[in-house]
C-alpha cells in the first residue's frame, strides 16, 4: 500500500527534518503517528499526502513510485487520499454541503450523485440539519465533522488525520475515533497523528514514533516486540 524507503526531507538548504525513514503501511491497516512537537510529524504527513517531494529515498504508494509519476497521475493518486487537517481548512465561503462535496466535484462526479452521497454522509456524521450553513456559523466540533466528511466522501484508500481530536472534548474525540475505526473496517488504511495518550492507551494500533526526524515502529499487540524508547510525553 505505502512503502517509504530511506526517505529524507529537507527544506531548502536547511538540515534534514526527516532522515532515513523506512516503513510500510499495509492495505487496511490502522496506525498512529506520535512524537513530540518538532519531531517531523507534519512533514511526514505532508509527504504522505503528496504535498511535497522527498529530498532523497523513494515513496511507493498504491503500487506506484511517486517520484516517477506525471502531474496528472499524482493528482489522480491524491484523489485516493483523504486528509483531515488539524485546523480543518474548510473553505469559509462554501456551505457545509459544498465543503464536503469538494473531493467529488474535483473527481468529476455528477451533481446528482454528489447530492445523494453528501446528504447521506452528513446525516451519518450528525450534520444533516446543517448542510446549508457556512463553517463560521458552526461549532468547532461540527466543523471537525465536516472536515472528516470531506476527507472520507470520495471513499479514499488512505485516510490521514493530523491531530483530529486536538480541538475536541474526550467524549467527542472517542466518537470520532470510533468513526475512523468503522472506516478502517471497511478497508480504508488509516494513519492518525496524535498527542493524545488517552487515545493511544485505549486503541492498541501500531505506532510510528518520530523523534528528531528518525522513525521507530512499535506494535502494542506483538508480545515479543520490545517497545522503543518512548518520549516522556507519552508516559505522562
Amino acid at each position, binding site marked *: 500500500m505505502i512503502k517509504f524507503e530511506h526517505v529524507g526531507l529537507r527544506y531548502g538548504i536547511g538540515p534534514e527534518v526527516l532522515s532515513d525513514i523506512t516503513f510500510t503501511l499495509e492495505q487496511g491497516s490502522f496506525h498512529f503517528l506520535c512524537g513530540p512537537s518538532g519531531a517531523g510529524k507534519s512533514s511526514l504527513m505532508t509527504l504522505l499526502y503528496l504535498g511535497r517531494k522527498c529530498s532523497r529515498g523513494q515513496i511507493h504508494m498504491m503500487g506506484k513510485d511517486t517520484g516517477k509519476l506525471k502531474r496528472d497521475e499524482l493528482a489522480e493518486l491524491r484523489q485516493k487520499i483523504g486528509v483531515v487537517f488539524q485546523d480543518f481548512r474548510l473553505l469559509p465561503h*462554501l456551505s457545509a454541503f459544498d465543503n464536503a462535496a469538494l473531493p467529488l466535484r474535483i473527481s468529476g462526479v455528477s451533481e446528482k450523485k454528489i447530492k445523494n452521497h453528501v446528504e447521506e454522509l452528513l446525516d451519518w456524521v450528525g450534520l444533516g440539519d446543517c448542510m*446549508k450553513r457556512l463553517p463560521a456559523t458552526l461549532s468547532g466540533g461540527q466543523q471537525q465533522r465536516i472536515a472528516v466528511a470531506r476527507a472520507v466522501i470520495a471513499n479514499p484508500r488512505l485516510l490521514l488525520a493530523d491531530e483530529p481530536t486536538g480541538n475536541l472534548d474526550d467524549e467527542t474525540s472517542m466518537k470520532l475515533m470510533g468513526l475512523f475505526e468503522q472506516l478502517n473496517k471497511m478497508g480504508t488504511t488509516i494513519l492518525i497523528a496524535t498527542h493524545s495518550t488517552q487515545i493511544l492507551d485505549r486503541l492498541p494500533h501500531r505506532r510510528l514514533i518520530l523523534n528528531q526526524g528518525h522513525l521507530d515502529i512499535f506494535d502494542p499487540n506483538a508480545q515479543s516486540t520490545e517497545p522503543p524508547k518512548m518520549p516522556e510525553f507519552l508516559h505522562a
Partner: protein
Amino acid sequence: MPKSPIHHHIFSIAHRKSGYDIPLHTRLGTEFLVLLIALMTYLLLLSASGSIGLGHMANKWVSGLENAMTIEIPAKDTAKQQGAALVEKLQKVENIKSARVLTQSDMGDMLSPWLGADTSVLADLPLPTLVSIELKKRTPATTQTIKNIVNSTAPEAIVDSHEAWLVDLLKLTNGLRATTIIVFGIILFVTSFLFSGAVRSRMAMHQRELELLHTMGATDKYISLQFIRYIFSQTTKGLGFGILAGLMTFIFFAVFTNQSTGTLPELKMGEIDWIILASIPFLLLVIGTFTARQTVYSVLNEMP
C-alpha cells in the same frame, strides 16, 4: 456589523453556483481589474480605428493625386489661349483620360475654405490658368509626353505632377499608421501582463485554498478553469464599458468631423473595418483566457 446566517446562506449558494471553489470574486480589486480592461479595450478600439482611418485617408489621397496632374500657366494675356491649345493637344495623348481648363467657379470651390463663399474677389486677382489632367495610368512615358507638349505650347508653364506632395503625404500617413499599429501592439502586450498580474495576485491571495484543492487531487486543468472563468467574466464586463466608451467617442468624432469644411477626405468605415473592430473584444477574450491558463499552469508548476 455581523452578517446574518440568511445572508451567509444566500451568498454561499450564490458563490458555489457561480462555479468558484476559490472565492475569486469576493476580494477587493475586482472592480479595478474591470476598469483597467475597459481602459485597454477603449485604447485598442481607438488605435485600431485610428490606423484604419489613416489608411483610408492615405488611400484617398493616393487615388486622388496619383492619376492627376496640374499645369499652371502664369497669369498673362495669352494664358487662356495657351490653356485651350494645351487641352486640345493633351486630349489626343493615349494615357490621358481627360484634360480641361479650370474655370473661375472651379477655383472658387477650391479656395472657398480660405476665402469663404463669396469668390467674386477672384475676378480682381491675377490668377494663373490651371489645366487639370486626369490620367488613365501614370507612366514615365506619359509624364514625359505631357512635359514635351507643355514645353512646345506654353514654355513658361509649370507641370505639377504632385509627386512631391504624394511622397510626403504618404510618408506622413504611413508613419502615423505604423505608430498606431505599434501602439496597438503595445496595448495588447500590456494587457496580457495585466491579465497575468491579476491572476498571479489572486493566486497569492488564495494560496491556502489552492493548496487545499491541490492536496485533494485537483488537476492543474481543474484549478485553471476557475481562473479562466473569472478572467472571462471580468473581461466581459470590462469589454462592455470599453466598447460603450469607444462608441461614444466614435459618435462624438462623427458629429465633429461632419462640421468640417471639406479640406480633409471624408472617412467612412467599410464592412471589413467593422469586422476588424468587432474582432478586438474576441481578441481580448482569447488573450485573457490564454494568459490566465498559462499563468495558472506556471504558478502551479511550482507545487509538486
